[in-house]
């Protein structure tokens, strides 16, 4: 072989010894997990004035997980409508890849521009915190929607629905379609997606405790990473691994569409039930061809609108994020801030052959 022996033991030892020594020395009495009490976020010390008016001329920026996603497009429509109604400026900006590190740069940019209200759907619950803190220190109000960050890093979170309600609704739809008997599986988004995990937890607990679901068994949870192709092949894998599968629940819009497309072209069409969260436009075809009976979703446009109103309310001093505060979100009506600064949009809407043509999003 050409060249000399690359591994020179003496030099390798020379190189590694100090590092290892440092490591070992440091090992005694170093910083380990649990040593550090994460200091809580800045406590809201301002007081709310429920009778204040919405300020006009606020600047809004919506920062989605990634910009090329129709779901967030719909949200931005709602937020923009709210911003326009409040005579504010609106910007829709964000990375083209759904990664936390790219979002950080965008948050930094927004905080420099002293944006009044930042509407954020987070790619990571923790990675964005320090940037968000800086933004808030600079006077921005941070409202998360769709996907939350650690509650200490934001002012408010606009939840599409109550976790319990979604979980229960999903399970109920599945049970109705398979007479509450047989194997079911879940096709989720990513394994650390906050929302999906919360709903899955609710479903698991309900399956355990509710006697009417006693004959149903959750056999698998797989992750399509919110990628179309991956969700598609994960569906394939599920059906091969579990020949007796009766229903798939996919609590993510990407997943349910991919699964529906797979089922509609396979021998399992009509044999395996599919339900979950999806948009009417994506699912219309599969409801019409009988692949899917019923699924659910909230209205992302309304979600964006509510997020914008929530942010404006906080920026105007109408609310501070404390539990029990009340504000009016334009045509959407009156909302109350829940525990941990969470505002909930409402129960999900169910879509089926009877009503699907009434919606366009």
């Amino acid at each position, binding site marked *: 072989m050409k060249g000399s022996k690359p591994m020179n033991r003496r030099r390798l030892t020379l190189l590694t010894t100090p590092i290892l020594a440092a490591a070992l020395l440091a090992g005694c009495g170093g*910083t*380990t997990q649990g040593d550090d009490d994460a200091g809580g976020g800045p406590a809201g010390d301002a007081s709310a004035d429920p009778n204040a008016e919405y300020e006009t001329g606020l600047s809004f920026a919506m920062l989605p997980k990634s910009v090329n996603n129709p779901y967030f497009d719909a949200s931005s429509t709602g937020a923009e409508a709210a911003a326009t109604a409040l005579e504010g400026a609106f910007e829709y900006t964000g990375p083209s890849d759904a990664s936390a590190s790219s979002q950080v740069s965008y948050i*930094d940019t927004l905080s420099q521009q002293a944006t009044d209200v930042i509407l954020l759907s987070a790619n*990571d619950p923790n*990675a964005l915190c320090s940037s968000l803190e800086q933004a808030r220190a600079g006077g921005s109000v941070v409202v998360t929607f769709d996907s939350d960050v650690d509650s200490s890093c934001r002012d408010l979170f606009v939840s599409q629905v109550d976790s319990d309600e979604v979980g229960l609704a999903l399970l109920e739809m599945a049970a109705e379609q398979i007479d509450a008997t047989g194997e079911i599986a879940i096709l989720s988004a990513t394994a650390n997606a906050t929302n999906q995990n919360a709903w899955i937890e609710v479903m698991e607990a309900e399956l355990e405790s509710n006697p009417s679901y006693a004959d149903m068994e959750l056999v698998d949870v797989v*992750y399509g990473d919110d990628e179309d192709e991956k969700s598609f092949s994960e569906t394939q894998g599920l059906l091969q691994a579990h020949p007796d599968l009766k229903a798939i629940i996919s609590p993510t819009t990407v997943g349910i569409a991919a699964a529906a497309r797979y089922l509609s072209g396979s021998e399992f069409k009509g044999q395996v039930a599919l339900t979950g969260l999806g948009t009417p436009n994506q699912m219309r075809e599969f409801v019409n061809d009988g692949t899917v009976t019923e699924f659910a979703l909230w209205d992302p446009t309304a979600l964006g609108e509510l997020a914008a109103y929530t942010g404006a309310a906080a920026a105007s001093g109408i609310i501070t994020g404390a539990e029990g505060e009340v504000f009016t979100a334009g045509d959407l009506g009156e909302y109350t801030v829940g525990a941990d600064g969470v505002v909930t949009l409402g129960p999900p809407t169910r879509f089926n052959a009877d009503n699907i043509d009434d919606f366009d999003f």
Partner: protein
Amino acid sequence: MSADLRRLARPLMTWDAAIIAVTLAFLVVASMTVEHFGTARNAGYIILDLAPILLLALTMTLIVTTGEIDLSVASTVGLTSAAMGVMWNGGMALETIMPVAVLLGAVLGAVNGLFVTGFGLPSLAVTIGTLALYRGLAYVLLGDTAVADWPRLFTGWTLGTIGDGPVPNVLIPMLVLALACGLVLHATPVGRSIYAAGANPIAASRAGIGVGRLKFWLYVASGAMAGLVGVLWTLRYSSARADNAAGLELTVIAVVLLGGVSIFGGKGALPGVLAAVVLLVSVQNALRLAHVSTEALTVVTGTLLIAAVLAPNALGALRTALRRRRTTATGRTA
């Protein structure tokens, strides 16, 4: 006299000088035209954003100058980050974890080096392989979960500034490492060997340079640097994840080439690469501040990359044409 003039003019005509000039010009123009761009705070953000790219570009420059390539750096960052998460969950002390992570990076680099120099395999293929392998192992270690409970003392340092002034903490190690790499490449016998190995490996080995060994250690250095970036990345984002820094290798290669380093080795200089890093990150920053859409960023990156190689080619062709004219002119007078 003309020779003296030419010697004086030479540094001004290199790609390095051009990219540095372009970078400075851009910074000046952007400061004047883009709101919020020219502030100390924004400079801090830019430095934080460019830190991982710059660090990886340092060792990448050395490797590319020898005529090889390392596409696995970003995956090495991901794997060390994931390993840090596992070690942290396992109760190890962060003071231990950090050097171990750097060491792990070095070992991963050594694997690349062994395949390239020991088995004589093309580095492009090898590091495409380890690009997938290391990222895959990162997922095996940590799956899709994130480890986020890093101590504030450390995460705060990566974001903090010196004495709460405008200068970010990370600038210090960055400058030290950049200076070290610059000195090694431009002012030491090792640097001469690196250029020689890239310009003509046969001639270099016949001049007593252990080309294989040199490349091996550069891969180790590249891996260790990626390990270090893994540590910084994890602490900066307070998040150890398998997909950390995914795709960053392309950006790193892009800035190295944009900085005037020849993909065939033997040519290039570190100042140009540093300027290219600053240019790329501040262009992105300015575009964001100017509310220009995301897609423009990718187009700008790609175009700069191609232009970086096209422009010197065109320049070279022009220069040859000029020289030819000059020699024919002298030929006529002779």
